[in-house]
Each structure stands twice: as structure tokens, then as C-alpha cells.
């Protein structure tokens, strides 16, 4: 996740002329405090309480304002954030957190275990409209023996428990007690305990954060972070070139074609590439014929050329995927390979399943042709993938009609109701390998994540064991087996995992390259902007 922040729109326009252009952005500078980092985001947050907003636009800003008990360090190991230490009982059912001493909210009030307990009660309260309550509802008892100690008990060992406490932003009891969390004005005027606090939110325009002198984590180098709301990718790029923003997410074409062709851009911007924890797939509706037939699914898997999608759609900026985990992590089974592109084998499988050419190049069985509608959202990369899939399937006798839908309609009308033949979609994954909600047969109600209707008792058992198992090596074995079954059964066809592509102005120093496993945004408090490289700014 990236960060950002902003600037004073009009004042910055002249910054890149004259003397400034002769600045050598590649020189080394010692870390120093101050400066403003401006970044662009496609959506404006609906509010800044992450558990209520539930959207990336909100969490990208709120991550600088609120702290959790734990966080991931750059190598994705847990470390304390508000917690100084934590202990898991020998039976794995009780976790005790010890808070750091003298924690304060940005308004100067003390931050204690009562705030943590209050936040837990909020997130598990049925009146709180949050999608994240289920992890915390497994806690059967939460208590605060003293102001610095918070203890939770589970009925059974729960493997994702520690992970869940790294994801819960602690909220201030003294400001929220007795208020309706769903509608409180606090969402637009938050008080947290992290490196930054809200300075100004100009609706429809930008959010500016400034350093929090009472931060629980020490002090960040950069004085201000501004996020400008610019929905259009092309418009963001224009602003980047005009030096009005310092950072943005690039498309493969911007990264691989435009940047290499523009030396003046390369002088000013550094490019970063990191594999995200997500992948794109082709999903089948397993409750509809003929997708209940494993031979049809495997045939489609063989008929699709995944490398062509990586080369054509991602311009090579992606990795093949053979398990539902980020390639290269311990959870991804290294022995699995994607189905090779093999149209002959696809045709043989379809023939075995009883499909014959009915004369027009489309295969059919009992008069029913292999003709389907493929749905996807208005996302250029997914649309292009769909066109490539359409062509390859036609070659083996399967006819595809593509329908591109606006996101809210796609999800609300078709995905949540499982009303589709095939979809091109993506999963963005948590760091914990538990994928109970995606593959378990109990998760098929409208709105739940197993909308493809996957139902395999063996997989169900693996998922149930996986979330109860706390030994990482044993969990690895479980999830490797899960991936093996999924690849064999092919309930979805993995297409690719694309790289996250970032451009960040070279005036920003202290960014690790290559990105650590936890991602570029893991150490933003260590980033700095040396005085000679800053924009000319008029401060109010």
C-alpha cells in the first residue's frame, strides 16, 4: 500500500522550473525532517474508521492515523505496535498483550487497555456495520486485568488469531463511548495514535495529514502527507508529469512503454515493482452444467494460454499462478505448475466428455452447445484477458460472449446471487493462509465468498484443520495439499498474478529497493525529503 500525500495545489505549480531542474535527484542526502509528500488516490474515503468504511481508499489514509496491537515488520514477522509484548498460553487458547508504557492519543489523553477492550466490543457488536467482525467473535472472553494488559480467550485454538490482532485499529473510548459508530462525526475527524493526525480534509479534493507529536511509534521524517482524489488514471499521470504529485500506481503500459521512452521522466521518478498478494482468475459456476464436469473445466484450463495473458495484458509484468497464494511465499506449493497450453489435450478431454462438433465449429452434446457468457468488470486488464480467453476457447470449439459490467452491478446483481456461467475476477488476499471463506462448502449463501459453489468434503476438512493448526510447518503441509486438489479439480483457472507498479519522485529518499516482503509502504515513517529537493511551497 502506498502512501501519500499532498500538497497545496496551485502553489506547487512552478516548482519544477529554473534552478530546480538542475537539482541532482540521484545524490545522497542524510535523513532530515520536514517536507510534504503528495500522492494520488482513485477514490475518496467514505470515512476514516477502517472497520466501518471497509474500503482500500479509507485504509490507505487511516493506516497513518490509527495503530493496532501488532503489526508486520518488513519480513512479515509480527512485531508489537501498541503492544510491547504478547504471550500465547501453552494450550494456544489465551493470548495476553502487554501495552507499551505511557501511550497517548493525539489529543493527549492516555491510551490504555480499556480502549482495546472498547474496540473489541465495537467490532463484535451486531449493531456495528462491519465486514470484519467474524474473526473477533470467536473470542469468548476479553478482559483487562490492568491498564496495560489485555487478555483474550478462545474456545479452541484459532490459527489466524494473532494475525487478526494486527488488523484491528484501536479506537479511543473517551471519544466514541455512547456514540453510534456507524454515523459518528469521528469518521471525518479521527483521533488516533499513529505517526500522523488529520490536518485538513477538503471534500472532493484532498486529505492532508500532519505529524502527530504524541505518536505512540516515535516520529516520522516527513511533515505532511497529502492524498489527492483523482479518479482517472490518465489524469493522475498528467499530474505526475506536471510535478503536482509525487507518487502513483502505474498501469503496465505506463510502466513498460511510456517511462522507458521518456528520459526526462526517468530523471525525476524512480519506479518500483512488487508482487502483490493477489491474483486474477477465470471462475466457473459449478452449479451449472457443464461446469460440474471436471473434464470440461480441465479442458478449458488446457485451452487457455496463460503466458499469452501475462505477455499481452501485463506486458510481462506478472507471474504464472498454480496455487491460491502469492508465488514465492511459504504457502504457495512450489511443486505445482499451471496447466500447459495444450489445445489438442483440451479437445481430447471434451470429446471424452461426449462433445462433438455440430458442424459450425462449436461443440455440442445432446443438442446443447458449449456456448457461454463470460462476465467481468470494467477493468481494462480483465477485459483484455477475457478477449484472449474468448479467442483461445473458440479454437477448441467453445463459444464465449463477453459482457463487461460496471462494478456495483457486477457484484450486486451477478456475483452475490451466483447468476453467471463464467467470470474473470481477482482475489486480493490476507497474509494468513486461511481461505475458509473462499472454498469451504458452508460459505455459499448470497453475499458470501464461495459464489462459484465449490463443494469438496476433502477440501472442507483441510480448511477446518488449517485454521485450528498453529504450527506453521504443519499448516504449510495442509495448504500445499489444498492447492494440489484445487489445481487438479480446476474449479477456477488461475490466470496470473500481476506486479504492483509504482512511480515515486526521486526527491523522496529512504525507500527500500527492492521492496521488502511486506511491501513498499511498510516503512513510510523512515522516508524523507531532503530540503534542497523539496517543492517550493508557500506555507499558509
Amino acid at each position, binding site marked *: 500500500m502506498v502512501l501519500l500525500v499532498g500538497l497545496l495545489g496551485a502553489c506547487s505549480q512552478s516548482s519544477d522550473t529554473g534552478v530546480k531542474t538542475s537539482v541532482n535527484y540521484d545524490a545522497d542526502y542524510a535523513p532530515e525532517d520536514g517536507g510534504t509528500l503528495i500522492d494520488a488516490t482513485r477514490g475518496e474515503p467514505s470515512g476514516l474508521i477502517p472497520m466501518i468504511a471497509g474500503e482500500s481508499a479509507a485504509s490507505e489514509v487511516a493506516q497513518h492515523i490509527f495503530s493496532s496491537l501488532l503489526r508486520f515488520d518488513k519480513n512479515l514477522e509480527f512485531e508489537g505496535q501498541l503492544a510491547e509484548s504478547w504471550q500465547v498460553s501453552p494450550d494456544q487458547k489465551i493470548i495476553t498483550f502487554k501495552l507499551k508504557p505511557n501511550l497517548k492519543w493525539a489529543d493527549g489523553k492516555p491510551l490504555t487497555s480499556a480502549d482495546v477492550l472498547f474496540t473489541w466490543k465495537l467490532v463484535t457488536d451486531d449493531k456495528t456495520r462491519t465486514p470484519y467482525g467474524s474473526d473477533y467473535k470467536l473470542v469468548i472472553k476479553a478482559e483487562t486485568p490492568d491498564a496495560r494488559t489485555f487478555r483474550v480467550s478462545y474456545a479452541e485454538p484459532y490459527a489466524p488469531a494473532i494475525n487478526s490482532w494486527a488488523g484491528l485499529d484501536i479506537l479511543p473510548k473517551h471519544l466514541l463511548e455512547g456514540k453510534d459508530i456507524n454515523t459518528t462525526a469521528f469518521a471525518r475527524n479521527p483521533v488516533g495514535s499513529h505517526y500522523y493526525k488529520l490536518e485538513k480534509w477538503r471534500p472532493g479534493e484532498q486529505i492532508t495529514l500532519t505529524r502527530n507529536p504524541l505518536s505512540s511509534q516515535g516520529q516520522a521524517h516527513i511533515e505532511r502527507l497529502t492524498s489527492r482524489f483523482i479518479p482517472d*488514471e*490518465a489524469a493522475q*499521470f*498528467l499530474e505526475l508529469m506536471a510535478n503536482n504529485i509525487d507518487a502513483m500506481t502505474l*498501469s503496465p*503500459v505506463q510502466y513498460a*512503454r*511510456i517511462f522507458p*521512452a521518456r528520459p526526462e521522466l526517468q530523471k525525476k521518478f524512480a519506479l518500483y515493482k512488487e508482487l502483490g498478494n493477489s491474483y486474477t482468475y477465470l471462475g466457473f459456476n459449478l452449479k451449472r452444467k457443464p461446469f460440474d464436469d471436471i473434464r470440461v473445466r480441465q479442458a478449458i484450463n488446457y485451452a487457455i494460454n496463460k503466458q*499469452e495473458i501475462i*505477455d*499481452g495484458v501485463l*506486458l510481462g509484468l506478472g507471474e504464472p499462478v498454480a496455487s491460491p497464494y502469492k508465488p514465492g511465499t511459504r504457502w504457495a506449493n512450489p511443486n505445482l505448475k499451471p496447466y500447459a497450453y495444450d489445445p489438442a489435450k483440451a479437445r481430447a478431454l471434451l470429446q471424452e466428455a461426449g462433445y462433438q462438433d455440430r458442424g459450425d465449429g462449436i461443440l455440442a452434446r445432446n443438442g446443447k452447445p458449449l456456448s457461454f*457468457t463470460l462476465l467481468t468488470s*470494467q477493468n*481494462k486488464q480483465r*477485459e*483484455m484477458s*477475457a*478477449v*484472449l480467453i*474468448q*479467442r483461445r476457447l473458440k479454437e477448441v470449439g467453445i463459444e464465449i*460472449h*463477453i*459482457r*463487461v459490467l460496471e462494478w456495483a*452491478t457486477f457484484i450486486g446483481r451477478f456475483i452475490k446471487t451466483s447468476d453467471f456461467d463464467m467470470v474473470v475476477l481477482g482475489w486480493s488476499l490476507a497474509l494468513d493462509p486461511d481461505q475458509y471463506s473462499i472454498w469451504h462448502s458452508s460459505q455459499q449463501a448470497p453475499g458470501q465468498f464461495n459464489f462459484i459453489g465449490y463443494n469438496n468434503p476433502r477440501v472442507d476438512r483441510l480448511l477446518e484443520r488449517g485454521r485450528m493448526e498453529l504450527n506453521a510447518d504443519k499448516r504449510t503441509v495442509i495448504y500445499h495439499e489444498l492447492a494440489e486438489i484445487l489445481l487438479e479439480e480446476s474449479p477456477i483457472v488461475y490466470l496470473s498474478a500481476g506486479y504492483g507498479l509504482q512511480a515515486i519522485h526521486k526527491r523522496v529518499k529512504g525507500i527500500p529497493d527492492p521492496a521488502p516482503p511486506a511491501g513498499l509502504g511498510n516503512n513510510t515513517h523512515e522516508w524523507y525529503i531532503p530540503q534542497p529537493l523539496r517543492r517550493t511551497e508557500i506555507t499558509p
Partner: protein
Amino acid sequence: MRRALANPLALSGFIIIVGIFLLAVLAPYLAPYDPNAIDVKAILLSPSSTHLMGTDALGRDVFSRMLFGAQISLLVGLVAVGIATSIGIILGAIAGYYRGWVDVVIMRMVDVMLSIPTFFLILAVIAFLSSSVVNIMVVIGLTSWMGVTRLVRAEFLSLRNREFVMASEALGASDKRLIFMHLLPNSMTPIIVSSVLGVASAVLIESGLSFLGLGVQAPQASWGNILTDGKEYIQFAWWLSLFPGLAILITVLGYNLFGEGLRDVYDPRTSAKK
């Protein structure tokens, strides 16, 4: 017709229309490549002798896609206007000939339809149906008949009281004979003019729908969806925006010039003003 082509406006419009028509009809012979042939090794190439208008983000030849896109534009334009004109003539004739409550009902229907912004009405309808070329033609046709209806009704009302019509009626001509032998033939000129102009707006609506992703669906090419594909690469792959944009501009201009030219020649009211 000869008179019309003596008008320089109408003539230039006519030449443009015929030219585009020929390109569309001959597309299968003129296109150097299969318009849907993907080549991931030739992505976003700029115009050259091998790819006259460059290639798109999937390595497809833009020139070939433009030619086949012309077929879609013309087909949608002609069929949609055919539907709209047929409906307009029927309803307008009924309203103008029979008058009375039939007229009132039909004209209020027209008012209701006109009070809804057409493009948004089309957007709403397309959102419920799936977007195929057939649906687009039908929906545009079903939402743009109001102008023709009013025109035909007005012509009928004025012709109804002309001596030759009354004479024919006095001689015992049937309703059918009056409508089809006398009133309709004498109303054709304004209908033709408005149809030609209607094609221009149908072409624009189809391009607009495709641009918004609600029109012609992939992989079929249409000028609107080539344009929308090009939007993301506009600073870099100008050819993806320029050529379809120009094609839409020239086509719409052609129909408008031809339509306006026809009107200047045949419509005594506008000619008189000059």
C-alpha cells in the same frame, strides 16, 4: 436527386457517405488483417507501412478494425433509422389523418417520450438488456421515432385540406387510398431529410454507447470501442484516439451535410429564406 447533387453541400456529404459505404462493404477485401487477430508481440505499434493505423493494446491491426467498425456504424445507423422512421410514419399518419382523440393520445405519447433525455433512456434500457448490435439498433430505433411522427402528422394535417386531397375524398377514395396514394407520397421529402439527419445521430449514439462500454461488445470492433480503448494510452498511442475520432466526425459530418443540402433544395421554406 440531380438537383440535390448540384448543391455543393449535399454533394460533398453524398461523396463522404458513398465513400464510407464502399469502405464498409469492401472491408473483407480491403482489410490487410483479420480485425480480431491478436498478436501479443505487436502491441501498441505506431502507424507504419505494415500497420497503416498502428495496432491496439492486444496487437490487433487498427486499420482493419476501423474498416469493420464502419460496417457496424452504418448498419446501426441505417437499421435504427429504418425502425424509427417506420414507427414515425405509422403513428404520424394515424394521428394526422384521423385526428380527434387518437391524435391527442399519440401526441401526448410523443411529448412524454421527448421529455425523457434520449441518451439516458437508451442507457437505462441497455442496462437491462444485454448489449448486442441487434439490441442497440432496436433500442435506438424505438427511442428516436418522435421527430418523424410530428413531422408526418404536421404534413398530413396541412395536406388534408388541400384541394387535390379533398377532391379525391369527394370522389369516394378510401382511407387507404388517400393515405398511401396522396398524403404519404407528398410528405416524403421532409421524411427523407429527417431520416438522413437521424442516421448521423444514430451513429453518434452507437459510438457513445460503445465508448461507455455498453455498446458493441468485444471482440467486435466499433469506432466507439476503439476510441475507448485508446483513452488510456492517449499520451502515448495517439493513433488509437485520432483515427476513430476522425472517422466518427467525418461520417456524422457527411450525413449532416447531405441532409442539410437536401433540405435546402427541397424545402420551400428554407429555400425561401435565402
